[in-house]
């Protein structure tokens, strides 16, 4: 039943044209009847009027059902509905009025009124199906074809990036309300089919496909997407900010270039974020290269035919043509793959804190501040093992973790800073930790490590800063460590006092220092050297005197000395000239 009602609703675009045509016919008949009025004309009019009323009512009901399906701008729907309803009511009145032989004027008046209401009704209806700018779009199109500066920018090779997939984790982490909700991931080859294609299907391809290629753009196949439209490429892999498609989706809804056009079904914020994450990750698509990682070694197997595609992939991965030609450098690994959304959600659910190192990084900072006293080896392993490749900065301070966790910590390839302050770690744990090849900063303050730990730390060559205050290490061992590893900063809480280089002389107060700009010798007399003010040129007032380099200078008022001090020499020169 529900489905049948829906089908009936969808007849609205068909039914609505009947009353329009018949109203036009009635207008013609009415004009004919101005000249020659006979009963058959009036009867034809009356019959037509009742048919119009019926069709109008059917159109209103079906229209209301169609609107229930949603997807249209509510304001336009409301206007269209109210006007349509008015048209139907007027049509019924018109049909009734057509029976009064003697009175032509109410009928004519109603006919004109109905036609007048019909115009905006039709306009709002069409705005919904064709978009608001449909009518005047050809006039506005001129602006669209003006050259765009960002196109030129797109010609230059994209800058090198360490981690092509970096943006994805950002979408997940920093935009967590949307990113986490979409859970968009590059890992699956069918990520495009799963997440992107449905959005394009729902929102874009009604107007951008092989059958209806608005703006010369089709989005129904990956190849068509790469081709772009009249205003150039639709997307710049890896650079959402330069991708026309996303730029237009992000324009204010009222903007004439906003996509989808106002009145059409609009994407949710999450969908836009998914598109952005997808473009940022290089816009991988099934038959163009489903994973980004595959692109870096594509150079050697390239054929002439696949060259453009390969170029696109390289572009997606942020690899310039020159770099792609060389074998990839194994010494410089790219950033790790983004951490899974579930792992991050688990950390947050435990009330631990996780954030990306920066917006465009897949590396993570994790702290257990809130729950430190309850964290043991099992909790740490459960929460940290899934993200071990992403950890760059980890604070386990004040937790209960022991040497068991050290092995996991040593296996974290990107861990740069580790805080183990006030934990029960022992030298055996540090021994395991020493295998880490990435650790640069290590906080071991307030532990019970003792002198045993010093040779182990001495062997950690990558380490540049270690904190050993209150770690049971004797001052002699600290001194030895500093001597053995002069480049290693050893913070043991013992170098905290700044050296005093000496106090000033005992204080003596006097007022005999010369004023700035005044010679030591007192002036011979207080008689001013001038008769007229050097600033204004008016006669001087003996109340306003200034001492400058042993000379007494007079002024006309208390304001002029301010100008004098701004440039005394120029004023004096002016005085001499006078």
């Amino acid at each position, binding site marked *: 039943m529900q489905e049948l009602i829906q089908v009936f609703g969808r007849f609205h675009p068909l039914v609505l044209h009947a009353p329009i045509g018949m109203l036009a016919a009635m207008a013609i008949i009415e004009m004919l009847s101005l000249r020659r009025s006979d009963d058959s004309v009036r009867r034809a009019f009356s019959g037509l009027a009742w048919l119009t009323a019926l069709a109008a009512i059917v159109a209103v009901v079906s229209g209301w059902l169609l609107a*229930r399906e949603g997807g249209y701008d509510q304001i336009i729907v409301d206007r269209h*509905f109210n006007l349509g309803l008015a048209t139907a009511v007027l049509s019924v009145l018109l049909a009734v009025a057509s029976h009064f032989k003697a009175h032509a004027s109410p009928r004519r008046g109603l006919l004109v009124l109905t036609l007048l209401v019909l115009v905006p009704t039709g306009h709002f209806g069409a705005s919904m199906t064709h978009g608001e700018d449909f009518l005047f779009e050809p006039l506005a199109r001129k602006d669209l074809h003006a050259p765009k500066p960002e196109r030129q920018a797109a010609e230059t090779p994209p800058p090198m990036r360490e981690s092509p997939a970096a943006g994805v984790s*950002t*979408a997940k*982490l*920093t*935009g*967590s*309300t*949307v*990113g986490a*909700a979409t859970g968009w991931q590059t890992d699956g080859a069918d990520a495009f089919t799963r997440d992107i294609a449905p959005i394009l299907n729902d929102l874009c391809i009604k107007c951008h496909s092989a059958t209806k290629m608005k703006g010369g753009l089709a989005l129904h196949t990956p190849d068509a997407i790469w081709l772009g439209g009249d205003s150039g490429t639709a997307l710049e892999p890896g650079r959402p900010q330069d991708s026309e498609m996303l730029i237009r989706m992000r324009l204010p809804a009222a903007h004439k270039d906003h996509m989808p056009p106002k009145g059409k079904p609009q994407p949710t*914020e*999450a969908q836009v974020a998914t598109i952005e994450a997808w473009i940022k990750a290089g816009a991988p698509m099934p038959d163009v290269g489903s994973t980004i990682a595959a692109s870096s070694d594509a150079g050697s197997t390239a054929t002439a035919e696949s060259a453009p595609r390969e170029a696109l992939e390289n572009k997606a991965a942020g690899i310039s043509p020159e770099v792609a030609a060389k074998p990839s450098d194994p010494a410089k690994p790219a950033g790790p793959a983004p951490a899974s959304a579930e792992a991050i959600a688990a950390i947050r*659910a435990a*009330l631990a*804190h996780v*954030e990306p*190192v*920066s*917006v465009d990084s897949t590396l993570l*900072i994790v*702290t257990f*501040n*809130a729950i*430190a006293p309850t964290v043991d080896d099992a909790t740490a392993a459960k929460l940290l093992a899934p993200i071990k490749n992403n950890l760059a900065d980890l*604070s386990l301070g*004040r937790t209960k973790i022991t040497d068991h966790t050290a092995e996991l910590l040593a296996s974290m390839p990107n861990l740069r800073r580790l*805080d183990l*302050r006030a934990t029960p770690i022992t030298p055996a744990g540090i021994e395991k930790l020493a295998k880490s090849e990435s650790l640069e*900063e290590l*906080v071991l*303050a307030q532990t019970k490590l003792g002198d045993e730990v010093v040779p182990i730390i001495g062997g950690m060559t990558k380490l540049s800063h270690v*904190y050993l205050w*209150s770690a049971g290490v004797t001052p002699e061992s600290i001194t030895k460590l500093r001597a053995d590893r002069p480049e290693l900063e050893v*913070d*043991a*809480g013992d170098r*905290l*006092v*700044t*050296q*005093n*280089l*000496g*106090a*000033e002389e005992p*204080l*003596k*107060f*006097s*007022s*005999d*220092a010369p*004023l*700035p*700009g005044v010679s030591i010798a007192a002036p011979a007399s207080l008689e001013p050297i001038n008769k007229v003010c050097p600033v204004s040129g008016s006669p001087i007032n003996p109340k306003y005197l200034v001492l400058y380099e042993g000379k007494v200078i007079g002024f006309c008022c208390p304001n002029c*000395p*301010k100008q004098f*001090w701004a440039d005394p020499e120029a004023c004096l020169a002016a005085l001499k000239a006078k």
Partner: protein
Amino acid sequence: MPFDPLEEHLLNLTRRRFFGKVGKTMSSALGAAALTSMLTKAAGASGDQPRLILPRGPHFAPKAKRVIYMHMEGAPSQLDLYDYKPTLRQRFNQDLPDSIRQGQRLTGMTSGQARFPVAPSIFRFSKYKNNEDGVWLSELLPHTASVAHEICFIHSMHTEAINHEPGITFFQTGTQQPGRPSFGSWVSYGLGSSNANLPDFVVLITQGIGNMQALSARFWGSGFLPSEHQGCRLRSGGEPVLYLKDPDGMKREDRRAMLDLVSKLNQTEFERTLDPEIQTRVAQAEMAYRMQMSVPELTDLASEDPETLDMYGPDVKKPGSFAANCLLARRLAERGVRFIQLYMRGWDQHGNLPAEIKAQTGAVDQPQAALIKDLRRRGLLDETLVVWAGEFGRTVYSQGTLTTETYGRDHHPRCFTIWLAGGGVKPGISYGKTDEYCYNILENPVDVHDLHATLLHLLGMNHEQLTHRHQGRDFRLTDVSGKLLKPIVL
């Protein structure tokens, strides 16, 4: 995509309009179905899970993860503490030359004075080694001097305000008029929480010894930002947070049941109105519930060893003293609180300055130095930005009678000294220079927006990108100015 408050807001508005229309013109069944699906996205919070305030994250890799901001309310005298002007000793009681004063604005308290006698500091300075050619500091600050190699002194700070209320408001919110979000609120808004059991922005207040000016709660208000970002004041006496303790006879399970019911009701109201303040309310009730456990742990000093307590000085056990608050600040920093705002009142020394400033520095010198040492040895200083600043400086001329024993100083916004330490600031340097009278800036002036821009930069945020749309335009902490002080950043 970074969290965009504007889009979130517009999204809420559209939904509100949509549901409003649905209620009136369409069947309520459809409305209800759509509602459930949309709200799972909008609220993002499930029933019994504590709602986490989601971090927005830094724009680039930060140097500092948190801030301890020590505001010296009343404006300490830079002449008696940091800005060494030995030649003034030979200018005792001379008139301040017009060429120096240049007719600049004075407060009503001294503009009527017949003369402006130069008052050199009666405190002896010593030179301390730093990473440049040494820094001169007053005998009033022996402990602070002992960590001079960690400190970056800015001698060329200046501000626009000449009175306390607008002066503090300017430093705290980036504008002199009340109503904008506080610096701490911006940081909380920009970076989010890193400890779900404590507020992002905590305020600790110490009553001063001398003349005290009003301290309004709006200095740590969130202005137009959601109120979850406002500062939470921890009280010094009795209970640190009022009404946090359950009344006698109430079990924690009962409290949980009550909160669950209330948040269900709140959720219903949120679904009706989509007012973000309701979410804030729910979040704060949950926060308070967790703070019932975390705050007693935070303020319990039993785990502090005697050596550490000694370092902060004899007042450390006195609740609300600057020493106790510095220790608490370290404990908060250790627990990852983003913004710890300390206020020390009582620096407004218009008369009898030498005696009053001696008492004030006696209260702050040892604790603030201890805080730096304590942060350093625990490996926290490198990621904690410490700021020490008043709202303006004080005049070189004496307000009221000048003798070799005593003098007063009026407000002086044209130049004064503040200092920064840790958190990616170059240690052991001085920046900016004032003239011989410490009246005007000679080089590298720093205004309040520059300071804010630089502090945000150290926290990994671009001050031009940290915005919030309100009343139709994007607001920034730095309004329309602010430049990064590159020379003081590591």
